[in-house]
């Protein structure tokens, strides 16, 4: 397919061009130019969604350079879903940032956002392990830059911690990829999968890669960098980081896990990942319950939610293909629901903080009377995160439960149910604060209705996902190398 018809190159070229362009043009031109960019991204991702669902997996060689030197891009069902997810969430966050930040901050925000977006799309579409590395590193730079953007002491500290953790993770990943190349002489995902053999080199390589990716995904107990970074950043940035950025390393992890059939050869490792996930659910939920700052509650909730998503690994077993498929669907749905719900929740939390002017929970008293729409947005996102119906989070939890039943791994059921009660506890704790009527004066700032509506839209999307889950489930099940490698 040629350059004009396929939306794949546009998904990379426009964000990259946007990053360069918005850095060069004057401050007050940056937003209009970016708005145009947002539109093209939305259109390109919708077009890609259409093409992939109609014609199946799309392969694209950049500038017709073939492998090994050229850059091959591949859009299968999984990648397409992630492209669509990041387009929708990033657009919402970008619009929010446009309304929320002042002119100077906004001007500096755009290049970083486009940079982030380009690296995300690069990761979703990458067909070889080295492109994934480049994408990961660029993503780290953009994300660290965005965290440091708040330019106060806390966010700076958080960004340095984040940078070091992320760099260590990428280096482990790179070393692993280098070893894989040494053993097999190729970097492309599909030819690696074809010639894969479980020698000692490959085992060391895969361990390094998984370790690095787990660190970057902030899987418990390697999560300590996440809460300060996500809780301390500016609101739209927090939303982007929690909803999209951590998903990138998870996505790579999932691709390696399935396409190289790690689940088949290292079943004990999958149980270990499940245990880490369970730890994240319990510990993240517990810590969220103990926080006194609103955004830290939301940030720790991300730690717990990563735990839920990781529960798909022990359930992806070679023995039971039906249970594995359910786990795969459940995990992806959980990830998708989390992207919308967490972005919505961070934005709603940011609005609440904007109203009260204070970041702590106690000052939320009376908020549900003053800003009912905003509390409603927060609540809807909370419903999905708690896994209560009707929501995408519930359907995901349902699939994971069914998968645990079918594969006979009942202990994950216990974890899932305890986790839902814990998340209900920390979310309703926030709620109880907003319903309190205290004597304190009501000197709240009034946020523009538009930023409240953006938060509401994202939260509503996570609820609607509960009714439309069949669509993403069908998209990620489209045939391709990934689905062939599934048990």
């Amino acid at each position, binding site marked *: 397919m040629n350059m004009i018809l396929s939306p794949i190159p546009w998904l990379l070229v426009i964000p990259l061009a946007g990053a360069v362009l918005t850095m060069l043009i004057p401050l007050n031109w940056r937003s209009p130019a970016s708005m145009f960019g947002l539109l093209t991204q939305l259109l390109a991702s919708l077009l890609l969604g259409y093409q992939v669902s109609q014609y199946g997996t799309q392969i694209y060689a950049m500038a017709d350079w073939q492998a090994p030197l050229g850059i091959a891009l591949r859009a299968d069902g999984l990648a397409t879903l992630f492209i669509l997810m990041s387009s929708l969430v990033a657009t919402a966050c970008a619009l929010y940032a446009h309304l929320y930040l002042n002119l100077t901050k906004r001007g500096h925000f755009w290049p970083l956002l486009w940079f982030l977006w380009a690296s995300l799309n690069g990761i979703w579409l990458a067909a070889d392990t080295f492109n994934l590395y480049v994408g990961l590193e660029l993503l780290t730079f953009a994300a660290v830059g965005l965290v440091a953007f708040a330019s106060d002491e806390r966010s700076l500290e958080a*960004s340095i911690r984040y940078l070091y953790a992320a760099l260590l993770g990428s280096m482990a990943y790179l070393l692993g990829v280098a070893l894989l190349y040494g053993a097999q002489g190729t970097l492309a995902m599909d030819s690696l999968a074809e010639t894969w053999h479980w020698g000692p080199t490959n085992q060391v390589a895969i361990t390094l890669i998984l370790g690095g990716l787990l660190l970057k995904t902030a899987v418990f107990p390697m999560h300590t960098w996440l809460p300060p970074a996500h809780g301390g950043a500016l609101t739209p940035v927090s939303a982007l980081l929690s909803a999209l950025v951590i998903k990138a390393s998870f996505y790579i992890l999932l691709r390696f896990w399935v396409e190289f059939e790690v689940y088949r050869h290292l079943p004990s490792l999958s149980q270990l990942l499940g245990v880490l996930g369970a730890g994240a659910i319990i510990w993240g939920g517990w810590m969220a319950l103990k926080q006194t700052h609103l955004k830290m509650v939301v940030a720790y909730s991300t730690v717990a939610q990563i735990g839920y998503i990781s529960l798909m690994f022990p359930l992806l077993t070679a023995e039971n293909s039906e249970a594995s498929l359910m786990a795969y669907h459940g995990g992806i749905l959980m990830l998708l629901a989390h992207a919308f719900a967490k972005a919505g929740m961070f934005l709603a939390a940011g609005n609440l903080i904007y109203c009260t002017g204070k970041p702590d929970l106690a000052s939320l008293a009376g908020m549900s009377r003053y800003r009912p729409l905003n509390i409603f947005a927060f609540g809807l996102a909370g419903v999905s995160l708690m896994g209560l119906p009707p929501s995408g989070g519930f359907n995901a939890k349902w699939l994971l439960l069914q998968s645990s039943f079918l594969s006979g791994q009942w202990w994950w059921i216990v974890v899932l149910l305890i986790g839902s009660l814990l998340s209900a506890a920390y979310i309703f704790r926030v709620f109880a604060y907003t319903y309190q009527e205290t004597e304190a004066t009501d000197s709240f700032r009034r946020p523009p209705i538009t930023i409240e509506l953006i938060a509401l839209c994202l939260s509503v999307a996570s609820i609607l996902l509960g009714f439309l889950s069949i669509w993403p489930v069908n998209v990620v099940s489209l045939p391709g190398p990934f689905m062939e490698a599934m048990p």
Partner: protein
Amino acid sequence: MDTNLIFTLGGIGLCGLGLFGFIYHCHLLRRLIAFNLIGNGTFLIMVGFAQRGQGVTDHVIQALVLTGIVVAVSATALALVLIRRWFHLKGSTQLPEDDAS
């Protein structure tokens, strides 16, 4: 013992040294240098693989190492900017002890 193995062992040594430094030191600059050591070790291992063909070098690997070096340099630059700003703000070269986690 062929050159490949020497490169690999050397690379692993560098990586180990870097990892040790990364965990052991609190000074931000030292940790940054340690990170660069890990990076160099990794590149050394990769370059070692490139020599396998007895005289014929593998240009894919060289392209990769070059890209890797560029990325590492950018990472170092970004880290330096952040460290410098931290130093201006707090007058300290290390992060406060982690108590939040």
